[in-house]
Structure formats: structure tokens, C-alpha cells
């Protein structure tokens, strides 16, 4: 080594830690997944135990596989590849350690609180507010560590993988914070600040983009680093990656409303969600093609290299899932597929195929390199691949068939509107074999994953941990970053802004302003062309310099992702919600009903029951009048749901007697033969928490829910009086019940769902 060179060691210890954590949590998350899949066919697997019921374990499964398995895998991949791509050791060992241990603590907290029923009641956003704050803070730690590392980099230009990491960090922070805005009522409970339709929109803006920016963009970044590395080929087209990156970041954020098609969400938002979802197909396939074509000339390696095998299959699943996603976002297709297992199949094609296989490929790539040894067994890795592949195909195919079957049966009605299958349970019975097949598919996948864990464990035991190194020339001249002024005052950016402004002026303002806009638009084009030609300045130069400047680059990413959110979210959430309701408005809950609703949320009932009747003949015949925007306007959180494992409950209030609900919650299968709903015996023993009600109602009032002014004593007395009335009614039916037990509050809520006031009726009579 020459005198002016020194060797720098990468922080690969943190990569090893995140990788091992991902494998451990992956096993846990998938095991819970197989269990809850089995619970749907064999309800005894709920064990009549509150913390083992489907409604509480399903959020544990989703959170574990998203944030624990994929989260840790992403952190491992980002930290490993970024250090090499920017030629710098991670900026802070302390922040790296803090990131790792705090993230594991967050996961453990989630694994404890979710089964205990502490939840916010929003899919993939269930964690309670103290954990939300911890997640946000640790995400900031991750961001600081990452951007600090970019700040001390020795590689001038930012490689495409790093762009995707930047987009991930910025956008996830934005989505997570907005969707988790809540006001606490206690240490373990809060209400989201948005309610009803506003909450639904914000939730799926977040929910869809959790898929986009937590499960997709970081994995694309990982693909762009590890695929060329494993194939020993440069990425197929760097220019395609530029187009693919910016269009993906810009378009993805708009697609959220496709989760709410045919609901009470305003029509313009539904159309916007559908259009952008269809547009998303192009950039998604740009990424897929770029990944697969990187294998050009190296396809033969697939036969021998398990890493490439997993990558190629993973990217193919990405392509299939991103074709299916736009298809499902077409309103008429959604009419059939929404609320059915088709969506579950679609999601698992992405998570098992794309995330799971890319993770496996990356782990098989990393393990021998991080422990300086050879992979213990290629044969085991190949067995893992085939078990996983067969598992996914069984899973996805059975869910497609199950979803289409249930969709057709539930939507089936003759010309007179008579339902072909009036009993919901008939549809459940018909998909039971397919749900059984899903358990087998999921089981195969889990066994394959366990083989990988064993294989990597043996690999580790045969080697010893090593860290990558690189040599630095002490005389290396630091590059001059572009800086904010350079980025935003560069002619390329200014011309771009001018073009957009003048075009909008031309099109959207009449008269003189319109003419000015048109003239200036053409003038700008002319000036830009002449300027670029005369000075030799080019967009390419500007973009290359931009890639050397992480801050301006990150700001552009934020702007691209922000546009969709601002256009969709701001108009709806800033509306005076009562002012747009023209027909029916939700009746405000009584204190006891509110407590019952919190129990409904806590038990995770929304995982199986929707509260949104779509305007289709079959749905109206089956469940009642279609749901209107005003009927859930005070629901914090909204409970429209996304799946109908059981029937819709939007109009269940008053449909059955109190005694029916009592029996049904105790042993559902006795009332509804063949039902797969768990028993809820603990609701008959545990006491209603009256003391929490004043604080809950105070927060609801702060959020704009028009509760009548009541003192704390009046709130509690009112709740107890209603509980006693329900208990007395149950007693008449021969059901002895303590009025202070949770089942009474739950019945109070169930009997209230769907009750609304007619806006035009000044007397305010309950419908």
C-alpha cells in the first residue's frame, strides 16, 4: 500500500445483525400466517383464547412480515450496498446500533401489544401511538445515518439503487406520519384525527404506498445492486432506470383510492386512483424488464446459481403482481374481486414471490460473503426454491379461484334481483377446500424458508465474520456538490418550471393571461433550445451533477411524491365534512356504544367484516341500502374494511335481537352452522372500562364529533343505564348477564351500526 493510501473497513456487522433478525422474524411472521390461514378452516385453532384469535393475530402476521421480516431485510440490503456504492463506511456506528436494537424493541412491543388487543384498527397501521412515535424516531435515526453516509461519500455520483433508497426513506416518513396522526386517550389508546371517508382515503393513501415504498422501492434498489453483482453484468439499461425511477415515484402515490372503488368515496378520487393504477403498469414493467434483461448472456447461470434463480423468479413475480394490480384497479374488475380472496392471492404473489424470493436471493448472496465461506448446501437452496415456488403457486392459484368463486356467488342475482346464494355461509363452504389448499401452499413456503434458515446457519458456523474493505487515496480531490442553489437555479430546472407554469396559464386562464401563457411557453422553448445549443449546457450535465448532490436530489424526490398526495388528500381532509353531506348523517354514538365500538376495533372485527355496502343489486339485496358518505362520517377510525370473510355489517344494527347477538358472540356456529367465526367467551367475563369514557369522549369532541356536553359523571351514568337496559332485555330472553361486562357494550354497538339521521328531516328522527 502506498504512503498516501489507507484502508477503510465497512460496517458489515450491522448488516449481519439485520439479516439474521430478518430471518428470525420471517419465520415468526410466516408461522403466524400459516396459523391464521388454518384458523379460517379449523376454528378450534382459535383455542377460545383472546390473544390467539384470528382478529388479533392477523395484524400480528401483517406487521411481522412487513416491518419485521422485510424491514430488517431492507435495512441489511440498504446498509450493505450503500456503503459500497458510495465508498464510505456507515457514518455512525452508534446510530447503526441504535437503529438495530430499537427496531427490534419496536417489533417485540408490537408482538406483545397486538395479541393483547391494543390496536388503532387501521390495516398495517395498527400499532398504538407510543410505538408509532418510536417508529417515526427510529426512522429518523435511519435517515440521518443514511444521509450522513451520503454526505461523506467518496463516490461522486449516486447509483440508481441509492435513488430508490432515498425515495423510500422520504416517502415512508411522509406516509407514516400523516396516517398515524392521532390524539391519545390513554397510554395504549388513541383516535386517528381523520374520520370516516377522510380516514379511509388517508389510510389507503398510506396502505397502498406502504406496498409501494416499503415493499417495492427499497427492493428495487436492492435488485439494482445485487442483480448485476450476482450476474456479473452491468444493469441492462441505466437510462431506462432513470425513466423507471422518476415515473414510479411520481405515479405510485396517486393509486391509493383503488382500494376504495365503488364505495362512498367521491367519484373523482376513485377515477383518479383507477387511472393512475393503470398508468403504473408501465414504470413497473420498466423495472421488471431492466432487472430480467440484466441477465442477458448469463441465463445459463440460473441452472447453477440459487441466488440468480431466486432473483429471476422474484422479479418475474414482481412483473406478474404489477400487471394484476392495474387489472384489479379497473372498477368493474374490482366489483368482482374486492372483499374476496383474489386480493389476498394478489398480495401474496407480491409478498411471497417478490419480497420473499428477493430476500432469499440476497441472503444466499450475503451469507458466504459476510462470513467468508461457501454456502453450506446449494442443493438445500435449490430445494428451498422449488418448495417456495410450488408453495406460492398453490397459494396464489387457490386464492384466485376462491376469490372469483366467492365474488361470483356473492354478486349472483337473477333478473328480478333474487339472490342465487342468499346464505353467506354457502359461499364460505364452497371455498373451504381452496382455503385448505392455501394452508398447504403457505406450509410449503414456510418449510422452504426454514430450510434456508438452516442452510444459512450451517454456512455461518463454517466461517467467521469478515468486513469488506476499500482503499482510499488521501490525495483524492473531493467533488464539488451542486448544492441547492445549483439544483434549483440550474437552467434545466428553471426551464422545466417555466414550461409547466406557462402551459397551465395558457390552458386554465382565459383572455390576455391565456395568450401570455401561450406566447411565453413557446418563447421558453425557443430560449431553452438556443441557450442549450449556444452554451453547450445540457440536461444530461445537470442531471449528472444532480446525482452528485444528495440534498437537492432528495428534495426533487419529495416533490415528485408529494404532488399526488397533495392533490388527493388535501381537498378532502380540509373539507367541512358536514357541509358535503346531503342525505344521511351518522347518529352520534352513546358512551356505551362508543366503548362497544372500541372493543369491536380491539378484537380486529374489521379483518373479516366490512361496513360498506356497494351500490350493486346483489349487495343491496343481501345487506340493505348501499352505504352513503355521511353514514360513517364520525367513525374514528373508519371501519369500511377490505375483506369479507364474514358478511358486511353496515346495516346489522336492529337486524337481530340482543339475545341473538349474545348467543352469536358466545358460540357463533350454534346460531350460524359452519361459521368460522371464533367464540368470544372473554367478553362475557371482562368488565367494561367505564372510567376511560370521559377521556375518550373528550377526544372525540376535539375531533369534531358532536357529542352533547356531558359531565364525567353523566357519561358514566348514561353508559351504565344503557347497559342495564340491555341486560334487562337479555334477562327477558333468559340470558343472565352482568350489565358491566364487555358483551353488553359490544351488543350496544352492534345494534347501533347503520343508524343515521335524515339531514333534511329537521326533527332529527332516527332512521
Amino acid at each position: 500500500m502506498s504512503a498516501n493510501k489507507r484502508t477503510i473497513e465497512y460496517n458489515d456487522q450491522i448488516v449481519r445483525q439485520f439479516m439474521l433478525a430478518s430471518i428470525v422474524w420471517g419465520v415468526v411472521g410466516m408461522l403466524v400466517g400459516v396459523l391464521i390461514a388454518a384458523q379460517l378452516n379449523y376454528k378450534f385453532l382459535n383455542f377460545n383464547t383472546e390473544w390467539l384469535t384470528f382478529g388479533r393475530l392477523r395484524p400480528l402476521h401483517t406487521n411481522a412480515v412487513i416491518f419485521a421480516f422485510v424491514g430488517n431485510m431492507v435495512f441489511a440490503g440498504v446498509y450493505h450496498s450503500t456503503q459500497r456504492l458510495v465508498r464510505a463506511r456507515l457514518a455512525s456506528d452508534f446510530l447503526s446500533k441504535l437503529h438495530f436494537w430499537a427496531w427490534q424493541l419496536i417489533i417485540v412491543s408490537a408482538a406483545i401489544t397486538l395479541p393483547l388487543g391494543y390496536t388503532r384498527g387501521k390495516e398495517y397501521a395498527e400499532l398504538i401511538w407510543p410505538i408509532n412515535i418510536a417508529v417515526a424516531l427510529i426512522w429518523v435515526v435511519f435517515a440521518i445515518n443514511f444521509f450522513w453516509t451520503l454526505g461523506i461519500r467518496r463516490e461522486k455520483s449516486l447509483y440508481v439503487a441509492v435513488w430508490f433508497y432515498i425515495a423510500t426513506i422520504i416517502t415512508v416518513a411522509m406516509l407514516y406520519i400523516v396516517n398515524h396522526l392521532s390524539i391519545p386517550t390513554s397510554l395504549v389508546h388513541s383516535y386517528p384525527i381523520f374520520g370516516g371517508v377522510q380516514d379511509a382515503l388517508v389510510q389507503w393513501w398510506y396502505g397502498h404506498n406502504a406496498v409501494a415504498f416499503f415493499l417495492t422501492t427499497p427492493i428495487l434498489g436492492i435488485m439494482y445492486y445485487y442483480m448485476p453483482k450476482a450476474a456479473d453484468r452491468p444493469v441492462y439499461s441505466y437510462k431506462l432506470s432513470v425513466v423507471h425511477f422518476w415515473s414510479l415515484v411520481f405515479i405510485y402515490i396517486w393509486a391509493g383510492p383503488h382500494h376504495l372503488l365503488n364505495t362512498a368515496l367521491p367519484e373523482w378520487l376513485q377515477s383518479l386512483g383507477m387511472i393512475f393504477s393503470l398508468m403504473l403498469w408501465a414504470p413497473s414493467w420498466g423495472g421488471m424488464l431492466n432487472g430480467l434483461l440484466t441477465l442477458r448472456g448469463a441465463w445459463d447461470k440460473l441452472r447453477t446459481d440459487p441466488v440468480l434463480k431466486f432473483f429471476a423468479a422474484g422479479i418475474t413475480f414482481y412483473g406478474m403482481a404489477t400487471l394484476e394490480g392495474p387489472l384489479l384497479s379497473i372498477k368493474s374488475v374490482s366489483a368482482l374481486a374486492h372483499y374476496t380472496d383474489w386480493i389476498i392471492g394478489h398480495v401474496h404473489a407480491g409478498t411471497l414471490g417478490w419480497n420473499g424470493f428477493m430476500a432469499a436471493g440476497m441472503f444466499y448472496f450475503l451469507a458466504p460473503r459476510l462470513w467468508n465461506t461457501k454456502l453450506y448446501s446449494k442443493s438445500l437452496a435449490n430445494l428451498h426454491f422449488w418448495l417456495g415456488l410450488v408453495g406460492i403457486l398453490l397459494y396464489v392459484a387457490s386464492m384466485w379461484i376462491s376469490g372469483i368463486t366467492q365474488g361470483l356467488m356473492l354478486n349472483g342475482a337473477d333478473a328480478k334481483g333474487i339472490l342465487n346464494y342468499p346464505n353467506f355461509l354457502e359461499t364460505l363452504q364452497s371455498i373451504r377446500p381452496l382455503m385448505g389448499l392455501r394452508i398447504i401452499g403457505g406450509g410449503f413456503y414456510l418449510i422452504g424458508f426454514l430450510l434456508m434458515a438452516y442452510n444459512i446457519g450451517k454456512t455461518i458456523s463454517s466461517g467467521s465474520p469478515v468486513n469488506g474493505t476499500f482503499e482510499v487515496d488521501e490525495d483524492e480531490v473531493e467533488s464539488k456538490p451542486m448544492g441547492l442553489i445549483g439544483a434549483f437555479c440550474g437552467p434545466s430546472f428553471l426551464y422545466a418550471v417555466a414550461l409547466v407554469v406557462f402551459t397551465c396559464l395558457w390552458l386554465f386562464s382565459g383572455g390576455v393571461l391565456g395568450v401570455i401563457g401561450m406566447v411565453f411557453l413557446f418563447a421558453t422553448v425557443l430560449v431553452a433550445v438556443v441557450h442549450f445549443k449556444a452554451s453547450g449546457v445540457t440536461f444530461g450535465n445537470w442531471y449528472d451533477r444532480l446525482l452528485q448532490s444528495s440534498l437537492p436530489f432528495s428534495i426533487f424526490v419529495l416533490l415528485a411524491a408529494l404532488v399526488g398526495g397533495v392533490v388527493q388528500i388535501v381537498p378532502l381532509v380540509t373539507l367541512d365534512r358536514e357541509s358535503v353531506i346531503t342525505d344521511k348523517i351518522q347518529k352520534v354514538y352513546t358512551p356505551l356504544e362508543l366503548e362497544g365500538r372500541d372493543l369491536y376495533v380491539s378484537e380486529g372485527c374489521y379483518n373479516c367484516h366490512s361496513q360498506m355496502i356497494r351500490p350493486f343489486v346483489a349487495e343491496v339485496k343481501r345487506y340493505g341500502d348501499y352505504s352513503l358518505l355521511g353514514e360513517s362520517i364520525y367513525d374514528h377510525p373508519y371501519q369500511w374494511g377490505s375483506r369479507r370473510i364474514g358478511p358486511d355489517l353496515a346495516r346489522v344494527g336492529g337486524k337481530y335481537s340482543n339475545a341473538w347477538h349474545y348467543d352469536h358472540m358466545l358460540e357463533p356456529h350454534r346460531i350460524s352452522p359452519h361459521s368460522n367465526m371464533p367464540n368470544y367467551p372473554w367478553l362475557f367475563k371482562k368488565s367494561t372500562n367505564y372510567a376511560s369514557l370521559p377521556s375518550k369522549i373528550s377526544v372525540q369532541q376535539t375531533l369534531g364529533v358532536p357529542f352533547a356536553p356531558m359531565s364525567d359523571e353523566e357519561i358514566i351514568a348514561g353508559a351504565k343505564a344503557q347497559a342495564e337496559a340491555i341486560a334487562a332485555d337479555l334477562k327477558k330472553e333468559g340470558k343472565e348477564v352482568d350489565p358491566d361486562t364487555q358483551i353488553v357494550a359490544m351488543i350496544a354497538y352492534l345494534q347501533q351500526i347503520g343508524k343515521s339521521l335524515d339531514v333534511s328531516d329537521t326533527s332529527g328522527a332516527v332512521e
Partner: protein
Amino acid sequence: MNVILLTVFVGLILVGFAIVLYFYCRASSYESSPERDSLMPLHEETVVAHRGSR
């Protein structure tokens, strides 16, 4: 509906803008180059034992 028109319109402008810039990009000389950048993952590296295990 106006929002959709506006969105499609702005989207088309961006697409047009991207196409124009793409051709500028093609015609320009680079400080770096996509070819060079795309080789970044292929850098060689050496390893040393992790201190905790030495």
C-alpha cells in the same frame, strides 16, 4: 372531472418534457456516464476479519 383533465394534462407535459430531455441527454457529453455508473456494483473488494471475532 376537471382534476382528472388537469392531472392527465400535467402528466402529458411531464412525459413530453421527459422525451425532450431524453434526446438532449442522448446528444450530450457526460461528466460521468450511464455506462460507468452501471458498473458501480461490480467494484471488487477485499475483506478483513471482524474485530469482535479476531
